[in-house]
């Protein structure tokens, strides 16, 4: 097996004001998978993301990239950040330029690419997020969801191997969430490792391949979404209840309404299963 | 029957930039009930709330309070805003003071109350939201959920008859949502009319007595939560799917797993019903 593309090893972080961000936090990211970083507010999700991108430096423990300990040299940071893109939660705190295409060009230009290459990347990134027609618009004329997509384009234009997103679904309504999830799926299908933080276990269960559970500044459990969400004690320790789809499925299997087998990933999928059941007319009880 | 405490009658609102906020929007609030204002982003929820508090003035139609048309005089606005409190979505945009108790005293001081009365109200409001011990803390040291409660205390200290909340659950994780919903229930039990906006139909269905559904700047339907959520066509027009608990209940009744009857209000309640079913050992199919 390849070494993980990114890894935190027993990382601790103490903020300058003395508050503890992380302690003894370990987690790994494998190439091309979709990860959810699940935890309550204040569990340390944002701090983890900032460590993975080299914005924060561990007080103890280490960050490893491709199996190598990361050295925090200037060149190393540039290389790390060009491979690991981070999208922050609030667009108004990360967009510098008022013009969409200018802002997206910021990252690629910093990588030292020539103008033609940058132009091509900006166009491709705006295409990917569905904002090609808005290249010449002013950021302040866009909706919240569009601004969020400009932020993502700004990171995609750097063509990262790993994309980190801090609470990307916050403030988006259901159709916008579906759209964004589809975009992230596309990226993952192209081999980009995606890690997003969320406090919504139903979303994490529905979307992620693997889940890292954070509580009190530690990653208390990691694993495939299905296996992990079945561990009620772990979820409880993180202040989460089991995903609705999983809990319902378990009850319905117990009652003999549904055959045993892998649980559907969402309540909608469960509803579909029940409807199919009805048409087949078989009640196993 | 008493006249509704607040009412919008065929209200239209056009923003100065020409964009339409509302058109032909009518809805009523009866004393002491819990209302959800349900709709997608951009459906006009925030605009409705700002009309109910007199922050915006209808381009056409009128706002009625206790059955009287509202006159937008200076004195009228003061009276309206002291009776109808509005909590905005983002705590950082509505907390201005360094200390918690100072911020909560902002409204009562503006009402022109004397210092003792203000002190008493601040203490009572902080009690109500469970932050009494935090009165002297700095606002910026609080967690997101605590800030949200300070915002609510700031409005409660004005002792409003009607409490309006814009997307109060946004950004809160599940335990914090449960806590806030309990607080709102307490207020409603004391006779305060509560109206909150949300795009989460599962939450609206679980919590509200009555639901107003917004779509395209209009209130397209109003009614008791259960009756309203059964109208799939109305929900569809508002870009909503039926609440999961309701849909699941209907399927399970159809399959004969559960007896016909009123649907449980939440997936958790449904799970409880299923568990009870299992123990009684009766499968009606």
């Amino acid at each position, binding site marked *: 097996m390849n070494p993980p593309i990114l890894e935190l090893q027993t990382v601790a972080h103490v903020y300058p004001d003395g508050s503890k961000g992380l302690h003894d936090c370990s987690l790994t990211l494998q190439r091309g998978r979709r990860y959810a970083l699940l935890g309550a507010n204040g569990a340390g999700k944002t701090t983890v993301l900032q460590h993975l991108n080299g914005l924060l430096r561990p007080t103890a423990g280490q960050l490893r990239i491709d199996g190598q300990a990361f050295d925090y040299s200037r060149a190393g940071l540039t290389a790390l950040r060009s491979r690991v893109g981070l999208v922050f939660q609030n667009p108004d705190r990360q967009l510098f330029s008022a013009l969409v295409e200018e802002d997206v060009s910021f990252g690629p230009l910093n990588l030292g690419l020539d103008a033609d290459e940058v132009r091509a990347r900006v166009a491709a990134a705006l295409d990917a997020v569905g904002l090609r027609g808005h290249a010449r618009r002013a950021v302040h004329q866009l909706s919240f969801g569009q601004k969020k997509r400009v932020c993502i384009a700004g990171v995609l234009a750097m063509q990262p191997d790993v994309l980190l997103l801090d609470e990307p679904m916050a403030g988006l309504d259901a159709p916008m969430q579906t759209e964004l999830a589809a975009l992230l799926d596309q990226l993952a299908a192209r081999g980009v490792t995606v890690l997003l933080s969320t406090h919504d276990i139903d979303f994490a269960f529905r979307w992620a391949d693997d889940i890292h559970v954070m509580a009190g500044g530690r990653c208390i459990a990691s694993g495939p979404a299905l296996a992990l969400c079945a561990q009620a004690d772990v979820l409880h320790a993180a202040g989460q209840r089991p995903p609705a789809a999983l809990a319902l499925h378990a009850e319905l299997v117990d009652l003999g309404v549904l055959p045993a087998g892998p649980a559907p990933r969402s309540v909608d999928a469960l509803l579909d299963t029940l409807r199919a059941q009805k048409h087949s007319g078989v009640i196993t009880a | 029957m008493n006249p509704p405490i607040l009412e919008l009658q065929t209200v239209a609102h056009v923003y100065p930039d020409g964009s339409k906020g509302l058109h032909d929007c009518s809805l009523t609030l009866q004393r002491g009930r819990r209302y959800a204002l349900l709709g997608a982003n951009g459906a006009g929820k925030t605009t409705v709330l700002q009309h109910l508090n007199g922050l915006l003035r209808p381009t056409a139609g009128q706002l009625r309070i206790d059955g009287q048309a509202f006159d937008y005089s200076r004195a009228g606005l003061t009276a309206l805003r002291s009776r109808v409190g509005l909590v905005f979505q983002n705590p950082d945009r509505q907390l*201005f*003071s360094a200390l918690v108790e100072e911020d909560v005293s902002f409204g009562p001081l503006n009402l022109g109350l004397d210092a003792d009365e203000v002190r008493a109200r601040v203490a009572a409001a902080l009690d109500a939201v469970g932050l009494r011990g935090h009165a002297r803390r700095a606002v*910026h040291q609080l967690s997101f959920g605590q800030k949200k409660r300070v915002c609510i205390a700031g409005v409660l200290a004005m002792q409003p008859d009607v409490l309006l909340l814009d997307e109060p659950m946004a950004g809160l994780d599940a335990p914090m949502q449960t806590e806030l919903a309990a607080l709102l229930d307490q207020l409603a039990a004391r006779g305060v009319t509560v109206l909150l906006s949300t795009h989460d139909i599962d939450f609206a269905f679980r919590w509200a007595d009555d639901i107003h559904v917004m779509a395209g700047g209009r209130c397209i339907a109003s009614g008791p939560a259960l009756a309203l959520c059964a109208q799939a066509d109305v929900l569809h027009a508002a870009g909503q799917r039926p609440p999961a608990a309701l849909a699941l209940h209907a399927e399970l009744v159809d399959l004969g797993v559960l007896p016909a009857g009123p649907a449980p209000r939440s997936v958790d309640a449904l799970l409880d019903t299923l568990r009870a079913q299992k123990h009684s050992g009766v499968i009606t199919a």
Partner: protein
Amino acid sequence: MHIMEGFLPPAHALGWAAVSLPFLAWGLRSIGRDLQSHPERRMLLGVAAAFAFLLSALKLPSVTGSCSHPTGVGLGAALFGPAAMVPVGFVVLMFQALLMAHGGLTTLGANVFSMAIVGPFVSYGVLRAASALGFSRSPAVFLAACLGDLATYITTSIQLALAFPAAVGGFSVSFFKFAGIFALTQVPIAISEGLLTLLVVNAMVRF
């Protein structure tokens, strides 16, 4: 107080630009030195300029309809030093000219001199002097902002009088005419400015 586009004769417009330029260069160099150790200062001054612009476009409660008072320049001088305020003031004045047609590009040099150089220096000086004399914070801040504003308005009156000396009596008569007629708007603005700065500083120190 802004001198409008084209109001100054060419020689005066260019002359004031030539006077302001060294101050601007000096301000930029002083910031540039700091950037080595504090890279976030670039962002800080950009955001601060936006905030100063926002405050300057504010309609103050007592002076209805009046806007584009140089609010924040005195405050900024106290926080960042008068040198850094020259570029910040330059940016604010440039934006006022381009986004609100207050002031102008041909008169930018003159306006920078009165509002981004004289104003902040006077504010800073008053603040230092007041604290040396043992004033408490509130009167010191009020005086600094208020006198900085008044100094700006007097400088502008001098600039106008130099450009348009009276036919009889020359510079001094002309100066008193400009100073007299603009006092109607500028003195209330200076007092509001002092008051607002005082409120802002009092709110800030509580955080």
